[in-house]
């Protein structure tokens, strides 16, 4: 049995549009995304930053480990799958205990972020961001 090439291409196009739309809408409806700007200053001494709206680590020395910062994921009454992403200059120095986990209903979770910068980098300010994706699973 054979299928006309024109019909096949048309069906591929329709299938792509339908499936893409379903998954895209699913992402919009069932996924909550929170993005935190993140900054670290590499200097010749240590300083703290108490900004609570961003994931800032203050000033640390090259080769040192900064004090970690915590983000609390608030509870919800449904099961959620959590994924943590990072980007920017500090992404390669940022460490979390786990970047993917399941959060049970009515429980919150504190995620600790820490930064360890290598000793051979220039002094200055380094930026990045952390994205927390909360996907409602059922």
């Amino acid at each position, binding site marked *: 049995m054979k299928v006309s090439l024109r019909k*096949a291409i048309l069906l591929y196009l329709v299938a792509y549009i339908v499936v893409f739309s379903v998954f895209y809408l699913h992402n919009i409806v069932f996924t909550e995304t929170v993005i935190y700007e993140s900054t670290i200053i590499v200097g010749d001494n240590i300083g703290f930053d108490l900004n609570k709206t961003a994931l800032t680590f203050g000033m640390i020395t090259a080769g040192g480990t900064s004090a970690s910062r915590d983000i609390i994921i608030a509870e919800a009454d449904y099961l959620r799958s959590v994924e943590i992403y990072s980007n920017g200059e500090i992404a390669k120095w940022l*460490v979390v205990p786990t970047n993917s986990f399941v959060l049970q209903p009515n429980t919150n979770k504190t995620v600790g972020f820490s930064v360890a910068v290598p000793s051979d980098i220039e002094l200055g300010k380094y930026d990045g961001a952390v994205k927390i994706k909360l996907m409602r699973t059922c």
Partner: protein
Amino acid sequence: MVRSIPLSLFLLGLVTVIFVAAKAPEIIENHTWSPAQTPETTTPAETPSNIELVVNPPSDVGVEVAFNES
């Protein structure tokens, strides 16, 4: 002349299209992001007393050593 393809090839193409379409929104959303780094766990393959080294974070000096006598 009307060109046609075998049904098996059509179905294979359809599965591929559906798979790509399902993954595309996630790829578009995460294309500038990478999963946050986690502490590295190194388990030496052949050690007489099964020593496991856990370094957290990668460049930190803290090392936990677990001895498992077997």
